[in-house]
Every structure is written in structure tokens, then in C-alpha cells.
């Protein structure tokens, strides 16, 4: 009897412990399966991951550079390769941090594009907005990739020129064959156009996409495709939604009060370079384009000797990004839209209109006492004035490198660039193969269907 009593106590105690599997199936802390629409949305709010974009074009363009060996010694190996348009940038095993980071973002965009419409607990409008967000991000990223690693768009050859591997679903297998340049551009335009209807006109937070961002990117894409009509339309659409230009006169005296990234009236869509070097020297070519009264020269460049952390003490360095320490912003802006519009007008021979458009920007860049409006005698003079203004406005952002590539399809707008690096001379002719970045050999070894760019 006693034994039975003890045994039953034992069994009761034991059965209390042996709970069901529900005991272990608890909600996790901080990590969870991706299910709800809000979670998809949050993936796109990861600005620290999704804002950074390219870095090397900063060093490739002719708007930066210095012959000072101390500065050149401070460059990383890959940066030096980009600066000298080298044959290879990367070692056999080395990752290309830009390629990998951009494709890493692409995985997230593809994940959202393919999954958000089937996600849980989200109103349809939210799902569609998140889908549109992802498409705009994806279009931006492919536009960057195709302009770094593929030849410049040329209507005659685009359908056969290798572009970049174009994954549209999150996957870890399958061919990485480079889609043609044409296909990549078509996808960019498709994504942007599809997204437009579900986007807010103006972004709630400038790191999120908006209609103005989509139009801005469309304008960029068409400009690269030399479809100037569509580029102009897109830039005008963008400007219709946001045409704020900062009057730099307000900041000439106290440049450090320049608006921060989220409240910058000119910013349309925030993307930034992955790296913001402490010091980016202004090239002599760039300096020669400046009027000393230009406020951009005064506050957005600085003598190297007063820039903290500058390796050298001669020449000037870019300073706009250092004013706020938030990064070098490279997304579409209102001034860029104005300049695209002006360029398209100039190319369509409406040079007087083009000058008016450019002047609407320039008037905000000079003190009234020093301002003289541009006047052009013909379309080609107007075009070259617009292009110079574009250089000044978009300096130190890598944008110049992409323009150099683009303008190689125009006669006479760019020349051969020459530079000396650690006492070796290098030069780059317009249209050279070296205008296309090499693909890291690692990726080709792993997926030989990726073909290397001719050097």
C-alpha cells in the first residue's frame, strides 16, 4: 500500500515535468520567421544596409585627384587600381565589396518583390506600397551595377552587350549569365514604371522611395539610354513634385548649418557611397571650372590644409559631405533633375530654354553681386555649358565617372584623361575598355558563365 502511494506520487511529479512539446515551441526573442507585411516593410527600412551604394567611381572620375604621393600612398590597393583604371582591381580570391553589397541588397529587394503580396496581416495598399518600394530600390541598384560593370548603353549594340547577372528572385542556384545591357535597362524601366502607381508622391522619409524618386531614376536611366525625350519628361515629372533648390547664399556664412540629409529640400531619394574618405582632393581639372565667387567652391570645397584628417596640405578637398558627416549622397536630387532637363533641351536644340533652366539653378549658387546668367549662342555651346554646370553641381559624388562614360558616345565632350600615380603615368581615352570595371575573378571562378569584360 505504502509503495503504491509513493509510486503514485512519483508518477504525478514526473508527469508534471513531462509537458508537451509546446513547452519548447515558444515565440523567439528578436529573431523570427519573415511573415507579416510589416516585417517585409521593415526590411526596406534598414537604411544602414540599403543606403550605401558604390565607392570606387569616386576615385575613377576626373573630378578628383592629386599628384601628391602622400595622398596616393594613403589609398587602398583597390582604390589605387580604380584611380589608375587598372586591368584588374581584385585578387583571385578577393571579394568586390561593392558588387557583393549591391547584390546583397538585391536579395532583399527580390525577397520583398516575390513575397510581400503573399504576406500576412497587411492591407493590400500597404503590400502594394512595399512592393513598389522594393522595385524602385531594385531599379536603382541595377542602374548602378550596369553602369559600373557593363559597357555604356548603345542602342546599336545594347541587345548583345553583356550587362550584369540579373536575378529577379531570391535564389542561390541557377545561371548567373550576364543579361544584356538592353535587358537590364528594360527591367529598370519596367520596375520603375510599375512602381509609380503605388508610391506616395513625395517620400515620408527621404530614404524611402516616392514617385519623385521613381521619376528621378527614370530620368537617369533614359538619359543613359540617350532617350532624351523620355529623360526630359521624367525629369519634368520629378520637378513637378519637388522643385526646391537651396539658396546657398543662406549658408555662405555658416556652412555647417546646411540642412541634414532628412530635411535637405533638394534631396529626392537618399543613397550614399559605401565609403566617405576623410579627404577627397579636388582635381585641377575641376578647379579650373570654378569661378572663385561660386558659393559651391567656397563652402563645398576647402583648402586641404584646413581639412581635418587630410593627408596632404596642398590643393583643395571636397567638403560638402564633411559638413554634416552623414555621407556622400548620390541619389537623385532636384538640381540633377534641372540639369537633366536642361541637357535634354540643349540636345533638342532648345538652347535658350536650356540656359533659362540652368540659370534657375545658378542664381541660387552665387552671391547676387557676382551672379551673371549664362547665355549660349548655339546648342552645342549650351550643351557644353550645361555639362560644366553638371560637373560643378554633382562634384565629388562619382557622378562624373558615369558622365564620362556616357559622354564618350558624344563627339568632343570629353577628352583623354591623364594622371600620374606614384610616378607612373596613366591615361584613359574616351570609349576605352577601361571605362568598364572588371568583374572580380572570384565570381567568374565560381560561375564561369559570367564573362569578364574585355580590357
Amino acid at each position: 500500500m505504502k509503495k503504491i502511494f509513493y509510486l503514485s506520487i512519483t508518477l504525478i511529479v514526473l508527469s508534471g515535468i513531462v509537458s508537451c512539446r509546446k513547452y519548447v515551441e515558444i515565440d523567439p526573442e528578436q529573431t523570427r520567421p519573415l511573415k507579416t507585411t510589416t516585417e517585409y516593410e521593415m526590411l526596406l527600412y534598414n537604411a544602414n544596409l540599403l543606403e550605401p551604394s558604390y565607392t570606387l567611381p569616386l576615385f575613377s572620375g576626373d573630378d578628383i585627384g592629386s599628384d601628391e604621393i602622400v595622398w596616393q600612398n594613403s589609398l587602398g590597393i583597390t582604390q589605387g587600381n580604380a584611380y589608375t583604371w587598372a586591368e584588374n582591381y581584385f585578387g583571385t580570391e578577393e571579394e568586390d565589396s561593392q558588387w557583393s553589397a549591391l547584390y546583397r541588397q538585391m536579395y532583399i529587394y527580390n525577397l520583398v518583390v516575390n513575397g510581400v503580396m503573399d504576406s500576412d496581416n497587411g492591407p493590400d495598399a500597404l503590400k502594394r506600397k512595399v512592393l513598389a518600394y522594393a522595385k524602385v530600390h531594385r531599379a536603382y541598384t541595377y542602374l548602378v551595377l550596369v553602369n559600373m560593370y557593363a559597357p555604356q548603353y548603345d542602342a546599336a549594340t545594347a541587345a548583345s552587350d553583356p550587362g550584369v547577372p540579373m536575378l529577379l528572385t531570391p535564389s542561390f542556384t541557377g545561371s548567373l549569365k550576364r543579361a544584356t545591357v538592353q535587358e537590364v535597362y528594360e527591367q529598370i524601366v519596367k520596375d520603375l514604371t510599375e512602381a509609380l502607381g503605388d508610391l506616395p508622391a513625395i517620400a515620408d522619409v527621404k530614404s524611402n522611395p516616392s514617385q519623385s524618386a521613381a521619376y528621378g531614376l527614370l530620368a537617369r536611366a533614359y538619359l543613359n539610354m540617350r532617350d532624351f525625350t523620355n529623360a526630359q519628361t521624367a525629369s519634368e515629372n520629378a520637378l513637378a513634385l519637388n522643385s526646391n533648390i537651396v539658396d546657398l547664399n543662406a549658408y555662405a556664412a555658416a556652412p555647417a548649418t546646411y540642412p541634414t540629409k532628412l530635411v535637405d529640400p533638394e534631396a529626392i531619394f537618399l543613397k550614399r557611397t559605401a565609403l566617405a574618405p576623410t579627404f577627397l582632393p579636388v582635381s585641377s581639372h575641376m578647379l579650373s571650372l570654378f569661378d572663385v565667387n561660386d558659393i559651391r567652391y567656397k563652402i563645398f570645397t576647402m583648402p586641404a590644409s584646413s581639412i581635418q584628417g587630410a593627408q596632404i596640405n596642398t590643393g583643395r578637398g571636397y567638403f560638402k559631405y564633411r559638413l554634416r558627416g552623414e555621407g556622400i549622397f548620390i541619389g537623385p536630387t532636384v538640381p540633377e533633375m534641372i540639369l537633366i532637363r536642361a541637357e535634354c533641351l540643349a540636345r533638342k536644340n532648345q538652347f535658350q530654354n536650356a540656359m533659362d533652366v540652368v540659370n534657375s539653378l545658378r542664381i541660387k549658387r552665387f552671391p547676387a553681386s557676382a551672379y551673371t546668367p549664362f547665355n549660349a549662342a548655339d546648342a552645342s555651346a549650351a550643351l557644353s555649358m550645361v555639362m560644366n554646370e553638371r560637373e560643378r553641381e554633382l562634384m565629388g559624388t562619382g557622378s562624373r565617372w558615369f558622365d564620362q562614360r556616357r559622354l564618350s558616345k558624344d563627339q568632343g565632350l570629353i577628352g583623354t584623361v591623364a594622371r600620374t600615380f606614384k610616378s607612373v603615368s596613366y591615361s584613359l581615352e574616351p570609349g576605352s575598355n577601361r571605362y568598364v570595371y572588371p568583374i572580380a575573378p572570384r565570381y567568374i571562378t565560381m560561375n564561369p558563365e559570367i564573362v569578364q569584360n574585355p580590357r
Partner: protein
Amino acid sequence: MLHKEAGSVTSTSGRCLGHPLNIVFPQHCNPETQTCKSMNFYKFSLFNKRYFLFPKFLLVMKLTAIFMLAGFLQVSAAGFAQVVSIESKNAPLVKVLSEIKSQTGYKLFYNNDMMQRAVPVNIAVKNAPLEDVLNQVFSNQQLNYSIINKTIVIKEKPRSFVDKVVEMLNSIDIEGKVIDIDNKPVPGVTVILKGGKRAVFTNENGTFRFTSLPEEGMLIFSSIGYETMEVKISKNMVVKLRPAVLELPVANIVYNGYQQIDRGKATSSSVTITAKELDKSPDLDIMKRIEGMVSGVQVDTRNNKIVMRGVNSFSSVGANASPLIVIDGFPALDQNLTSVISNTINGNPVNVPAPSTSGSPVLSSFNVSDIQSITFLKDASAVSIWGAKASNGVIVIETKKGKRNAIPAISFSSALSTSGPADLSNIDRMSNKDYIALEQELFNLNYLTDPASAWRYASISEAQEWMFRVKRGTSTVTQRDSALNVLANRSNLGQIRDQLLQHAVTQQYNLAFDGGSENTSYRISGNYQKDRPVYKSNSGESYFLMANMSNDFLRKKLTLTTGITYTSKKAQTNSAAINAISIGRLGLAPYDMLADQYGNNIGRSLTFTQRVADSLVRLGHKSWNYSPFDELSYSNTIENRNSVRLNGALRGKVTHWLNVDVSGMYQKNMSDQVLLENENSFATRERLNTGTSIQSGRLVYGVPLGGIYKTSNSGSQNYSLRGQLNVDRQFNSIHRLNVIAGTEISEQKGSGYTQTRYGYDEQLSSSAVVNPTTPYMTMYGYTTTLGYGDGTVSKNRTRYLSYYGNAGYSMYNKYFLSGSIRFDDMSMIGVERRDRAAPLWSAGLRWDVKRERFMENVKPVDALALRFSYGTSGTFPNTGASAYQLISLGGRDSYTNLPYASISSPYNPNAGWETTRQTNFGLDASLIKGRLGVVFDIFGKRTSDIWYNVPTNATYGFSTIAYNTSTMKTRGYEFGLNGQVTKARDFQWDASFNFSYNTNEVTDDRFNSVSTSPATPRLTVGYPIDNLFAYRWAGLNDKGQSQIYNAAGEILSSTGSVQIQTADLVYMGRTVAPYFGGFNTSWTYKGINLFMRASYSFGHVFLKDDISGDKYPTGTSVSGLLNTSRVLADRWQKPGDEASTNVPGLPNTNFNSISWYKYSDINVLDADNIRLQQVALSYSIKRSLLQKLGGLKGANVGFSVNNLGLIWTKNKENIDPDYVMTGAFSNLPPTRNYSFTLNLSL
């Protein structure tokens, strides 16, 4: 209590309460004699069961009160008269004496054994004087009495010659036999005549002869492993000994956390270190105490890591490679034996970073003095009971407990150790002259910028300043050269040693109190430890408090065991000293003194040249100067860790063969860190100054004035609850079955966060309100923000549910079979139960060969057993394997304030367990009368489905993706030898030696690495995972750049487009020692013991690592201390040097050139070494002397020298392979250390 019959004479009022008075400490009694030993004076079995049917525990609780009451009664007893009235017929002597006692108030002092031999007493007296009565009572007895200080002391009567003759005539000679329950003879049993001093032993046939025994006497039979028995003397007696169930000597038990198994019956491979062995080394760091002691266990004290039987998986670091640490039956919350404290503020309860350098304060996780034993479970059969957590082996720690029926004892021990001053000559440092020449070459090559050219430049070294003076024309070449000459002859090493370093000192004090009565045992201990490492302003302190209690209820049917452990630890870290000798901005150039000739501290401006810094100070800035010595007082990171562990177990005896255990443990760790960078600290001054701009002629402070106060708080807790059935049943004399089965749940969770406060005022203990995202203006004309990184609260929670069972079956006590199975399920998001919960099992076999008949006559072999085991273990990769796409939450973007999510790992529908199958063959032998013990094990492990981050084309979105993909095997053998070289009466020489070998190999032929990088081991089929590949060095070219050979023997140049192929690298060997072990020996002469301990490791290689890309002085940061590596002094400088040097030059440098040099075969050296860890001398004070010292039970004093360093190393450069240069002081081996120890017990 004095005697069992207490209370059977019933005339006193305070019968039970009065008896405790009779506890008399026998100063007049020699504890060495048999008589005294068998006395029960000390025992706390105060109350006879018959009189107290209340539950015992109530009484135990009342003990204190009773003692107090007893004290009063004693006082009143003094007033009794010394006359006695008594009448008895054939009454036992005891009864009579008790009556006398109650009438007189006199105390009694006697031995129970004597009383049993007393003759019954007939007496009738009335008011007779005490002495008359006693004379009458003792007239017929073999006993005598005396009265000492109101105590009646009863002694044996000295026997006359006649008595002895009579006794001899009455005595008998007997023969007998001792057998065990299997009817096998038991040799070596001690047979003692009860109450006498004589003893004999049984021979190998279990028989004994005993002569001249009293006919009515008792014999006591005792032998290790058997219960001690008392048997009445008879002719041709046969005594059957029962095996002892409890209290086997620790070393003979394998405690796996769930059950205790007799080592002689274990099928598994394990090693136990007992408290005695642990005590041989006085080191604070328990890792150092066990290093080289256990075969198959590699202890890396430099990196605070333990590896058992090699690796089973590709993740050779982190939790996946560490053994599970179990304390008193439950996994410890802190899975490190020792914590090395870093100064990183960390709010994550899971990942506590360890510092990268050695010499940080050490906090032990356990009080070594509380450890009864540490068992290392090695093979599958031993660990499978722990299931999923145990694939890397298990370390089971058992703490000391009080013993039943034990005399209360106090033990005290103390150890104090001090190290010699740090030997700075061991730093890999070139001469000052060479250092200045290095600076001169950097200067000549234009790697340096003249700070005088702009105000914002950082300051440069004194030597560089002189070089620039010549360039500027403010100084002549002669002036410069004479100044440089002064610098070349000035060394700061002396000042660094005196001002920034200290003698490392450790202190330990331990006090423990234990005891037990028949139904209760307890142990309480307290410990204090202090560690003061070699760097000033660093220290660690720990307090441990532990109390254990065990009580029996319901006539020992129910046993309740409870324990509580509280640990409080505190550590202070400060990196000023280590920074001063490390490469980089805060490092001191070798000629930079700490104090001037008058003894004043020298502060140097680092951010700007001294001239600019001084003028900024004149404008209102705080000082820009940095002085390592001053910094010792600021920026201390103070860490407090408190932990508490409660455990309880209730064991119920259902039948004689079935027990039920219900046990549980709760653990909680709380830790907080405080780093106050007060206003005087350099970091804060620099931050405040940088944030101070001059606007409209006045200073505007962007950062609130005051200190920066950083804190972190983290806590983790864990509970486990277990129910277990234990069956131990002997079916007849042949079969015995031992089964445990149980279930267990546990939960572990933690949370933590960090916080930074600005403008902290120590006096007011208050800080300023800041918006960390509001931009403020800096002195450089741009704005910045304080930044916000404290938003996230780290949290984790995991639950486990397990069912387990273990069965052991033995036949004829000769064949043993064991099997175990365990089923584990745990919280794992996104994994289906079928993949999540895995059954793991093992089986084992033991054959006690010596018990076979054919071994009976093999005399030199005392014991011989063979073991075999096979089983599986598994690990679930905790790196976020998931069948769903997982995201991590918990952050808000600091600009947009939007909550964001990130992808923690890509989706993998097939995520599952890594499975290791282990086979083990073992042999245990004992030879030459137990003088030589041999343990040999050979094992093989095969792991499949290894979780590996397969390199992926980053185009897919990830550079690596983890899969259960590969296979590998590990095999090895272990050999342990324990011997008594000589054993004489006074002299004993013991030695033990162990040797282990293990190797591993990737067996998956898909793993054929195409890696061309030697930096990380490449996983390739046929190679061990800790492989080291190197470039084949081909010398320098005429530009001072490295060249290597490719596979075809062509020389490759580091410039241009270099295509290195996998085959161009050569295999150099393993980086983990395949052969390792230890040796220790001790000589004991009387109380003096000399002990020596050494460890060795052979067969591996290491990379010299004296120059690396980021430490090469042409890199972007050339401020502060440059790389001082001696080889750099021999660098290439001009064409032609390539004939005599291999060190790349400063000009024409490129990444490949430095990396090729660093990873070339010329820099791979043999790491084989033998290390003498300790020589210790101790003296145990003789018992006779202890008596004079006031009855101490034991006293031992010791002196030891530790960290004696390398005895031998294979590499010719004499580099200590365990402490190679990693850029800081950490290349210094620990210095020699001297310890004094004292142990007392009373």
C-alpha cells in the same frame, strides 16, 4: 552523544536535554589509539529514536535551542550532593553509572566498547559517599575509574601478568574466509579484533588466520569497495561482504551528472581529477591547474579554451567546439571555467568578448576549494546521457559536501603568489638606433608629412621632428644627429616597468566548515580571491559563498539535499599600460619617457603638435596632452558580476532497488559594467575639445561638459527541473541491473543593454540631457552628432525538453553492458520538429578480464579490463539555421527612427543536426600490486552533415551560405600511466604521465579548396582542418618586393596581375598540436613533498607573424609607436640587400609583397615545446607536533614556483609558440611566479 543507552535510566528530569553536557573533549586521550577512535564522543546522534517519533528535521532545527538550554542545566548540576543512594540487581554498569551521574551531577567519560564487556552490578547503598559507591561498583570489573575535575573517567584496568595468562588460556585460534556476494574470495581484507590492536589480512584465497582471540570477541572486516562488517568470533567463520554502495573514494567513481558509476564497472572513457590533485597547484586560474593533467584534453590557457579529443566540426571556435560544463548535475550558466575580463562595454548576455591580449584580470567561475572532483567525459558512452549539448565532451564538476556521521571540521587555506617583474626584454623590439633609422627611411621616402605645414596635423615623434627641422632649415644636420644620438641611447623600458607595470599578485583565502550526524550533513564555505595582473590599474576580486545541506526523513526513506552558492566578482580593467607598449597612436616611441628627470609626468599632445595644442589651450580648450601614467587613474572599466545558484534534490526510496529523484536548479547571473571617462580622461578631453567651436569670439560647447559615463547591464537566468527513476537490482548472485530513466526541462534566458550618459558630474552623480542626433559644430568647421547606439535591448530565450535513459547490466560482476538513449528537443525557430528533436544513443561493453579463471595465476596483473563503446552525439548549429527566412528585429534607424529588420541568415529548408559517431576501445590495468596503473584508449570519430558556410557567389546575395554538408573524421589515442616508483615506510615516489594524440581529416571529397589564400585554413579533403599552407619563398627582387615560386617553380612578382593557383601553396602542417600531454611526479619523505609538473606538445607549426600588412609602417596610420619587430631592422633598403635579407623594404611596397612575406614558408616554424609549469615543495606538520599546537588535525605549508617557462622548444629562434607576437604585450609569456600556501584543518 555518549552512548546508545542514553536515557534508559529514567530518574533525571532533563534526560535528553542533559546528555549533551557529556560531550567532553578528550585532551587526555590519544587519538591514535584504537580506544579513542572508536569512542563516540563527537557524534551528534543526540537522540534515541524510541523517544522521539517527531520528524527528525524539527529536532534538528531545535538543536540550537537545546544546546542553550543544556548550558543552563550544567550550571545547576554543580549544586548536587556527592552522596549516592542506589539499589540494583544484575543491572548493566551503564545504568548504574547513569544513576550515579544523575544524583551527583558528575560527568561520565567512557568508551562504549568497554561497557559492553562490563560485568552486571549488584549493589545496595544509601547516602553513601560517591567514592565508596564507585569502589564497590568497580570491584568486579575489568575496569578502573578515576575522578578528574567532577568527571568520572573510566579506563581499562592495567592487567596483571596473571590476567594475561588467564586470557591466553581462554583465547582461541580461528580460521576464516571472506567472500563477496558472488561467493568469490576477497583478498586483502583487513580483519581487526574489536577493542584490540591486532589485525590480519586475507590472502588471495580470501582466507585468514587469527590467533589468541577472546572467545566472546568481535572481528571487524573492512576493505575498499565493501561495507565494513562486525562479526562475532567463531571457528571457521565465513563472512560475506556486501559491496559498498556509497562513499567510494572519489577517484573510483565516474560521476556523469546523473548518476555515480563505479569506475571498475564503467564501459566509458573518462578521467577524474580529485580535489587533492587540484590542490597541488596554487594557481588562481583553474585552467592552469588542469593543464597537462588529463589525457585527451587540450587546455589553451593563452586563449582560455578547452578542447577534448580534437575537433568534430569545422567551427573550431566558439560554443560549438567547447565541452559542456556541468556543475552538480546541471549545466552551468557560465560555460567558462575562467573568465578573462575585457574592457569592452557589452550589453549582450550571450556573447561576452574576451580580450585579444593576455595579462587581463582573471575571474574564476568556480571556487576551486569547493570542488570535490572534475570528471572529463570523453567517449560517446560517457557523454550521450547529456545529449545534444555534449558532442564536444562534458566536464562534470562536483562540489564538496558534508559527510554523514562526521566530526565537525574547520579547514582554512590560503595561497599567496607573486610574480617577478615583467620581462620587457621579451618584447620583440628593435634597438632605438634601428628604430630611428626606420623613421629616417620613412621620412626619406616621403611617407611622413611635416606637421608644421598646417595647424591640424597630428604630432610626430621627437626623432621625426628633428628630421623635419633640418628640412625646414631650422636646424643643422649636426644638431639633428647629436639629438638623434641622445634618443638612440635613451630607453623608456625602465620607466614603463616601474610606472605602468606591477608585480602580478594573486591571493586566495578559503574557510570551510563541515560535519554531519546520522541523518544530516552540511558544509559551508567561503572564499576570497584577488588577482592583480601585471598591468597597473587592473585587478580582479571574487567572493564565493556556498552552503550545502542534506537531511534524511521518514527513517531515511526520503533525503532532501539543498545548496546555495553566491558569487560576487569584481574586475577593473584599464588599457593605459598596454596601449603604451602597443603599436599605434597611444604607443610610446622607445625613447619617449614617461617622466622627466625631476620625476614629473610627461604629457604629450597627440592630436596636434604641441605648439598648436598649447595655443588651443590658451583659447580655452582643455589640455590636449596624453600621459599613460595619468590615464591609469581614469577610464577604468569596472565590472561587477553577481551570481547565485540554488539547487535542491529530493530522493525517495520506494523499494530497496528503486529510488525516485526530483531535482532542480536555478541560476541567475547579473553583470554590470561601468566605464567612467571623466573630464580628466584623454578620450573625454579630446571629445570635448573637438566639440568646442569658437563662434562670434566665444567658446560654444557641442558636447556637454563633464565625463562620459558608459554602463552596461546584462542578466541571464536558467532553471532546470528533472525527474528521474533509479533502479539498482541484484537478481541473484549473477545478474545485476542498473537503470535510470528521466525527463528534464530547462529554460535559459537573458537580456542586456548599454547606456551612455554625457556631461556626467561625479560630485552630483548626474548627467546632462542630450539629444544624440542633434548636430553640433566641431572645431574643424563641420558638424557631427553624439550618435545613438543604445537603442537595442538584447534578449534571448531557449527552452529544452529531454527524455533520457541509461541502463547498465552486469553478469558475474565480470561482463558489463551499458546503453543509453536521449531525446532532445529545443526551442529553435523555423525548424520542424522532425529535424529539431534528435534521438542520440550509445552502447558500451566492459570485460573484466582479471576475473576470468585463466588470469587468476597471472600474478603481476591485479586488474585488467577491456572496454568498448559506440554512440552518436549531435550538435545543432546555433548560427541561425532555418527552414524559413529569418529576420532579426530590435533596431531603429537613428536618423529616420523607423524600426528596421535585417536578414539574419538565408533560408535553408534542409537545416539539421551535425552528427558525430564515436567508437572507443579502452584498456584499464593495474599491475604490480596496484603500483602501476595503466589506462589506454583509442578512439575514432566520424562527423557527418557538418554545418559549413559554403563560399557562395556573392552575386546570389551572400558570400557564404551555411549547409549541412561535409564529413570529417577524427581519431586518436590516449595513454595514461600512474605509478608508485617506490613505496617505503617514510619515502614515497609517485609519478604520472599522459600522452595523447589526435588528428582530424576532412573526408568529403567535394571539399577541394581552390583557396589561394594562406591566411585561413583551407578545408580540403585529406587535410586536417587546422592546416597551415604557405607561399614558397623565392627571395626579394631588386626593388625589395617579395617573390614566391609557383607550382611550376617559376618566380612570381608581387606587382602586376598575379594569378596565384591553389597548387602554388605548400602544406606546412597543423597549427594544433597532435601530440600533447603532461608529466608530474612527487617525492614524499615523511611530511615533506616535492612536486613537479610539466606539459608538452609536439608536431605542430606556427606562423611567426612578425610583420603584417596593417602593422607595416607604410600603412595609413603611422602615428605613435611603429612596428618594432626586430626583423624589420633587417629590411631591404637598397638594391643588393636582397642577397642578405628576406624582409620587404619600405619603398615599392604593395599588399602582395607584405602578405607573401608574412605567409611564406620561411616564417613557419616548428611549435614543438616542453614547458615546466611548476615545482612545489610542501611540508605536512607531524601529528605529534600538531597535538602540541592545540589539537590541529592537519597543517601543511607549501612553496611553489610556477610558469617556469619553456624547457625546450624546437624552433631555433627560441620563440615561445604559445605567445607569438600579435602586436601588443601579448607576445610576452607570463613571468615566473612564486606561491606560498598554507592549509590548516581543525
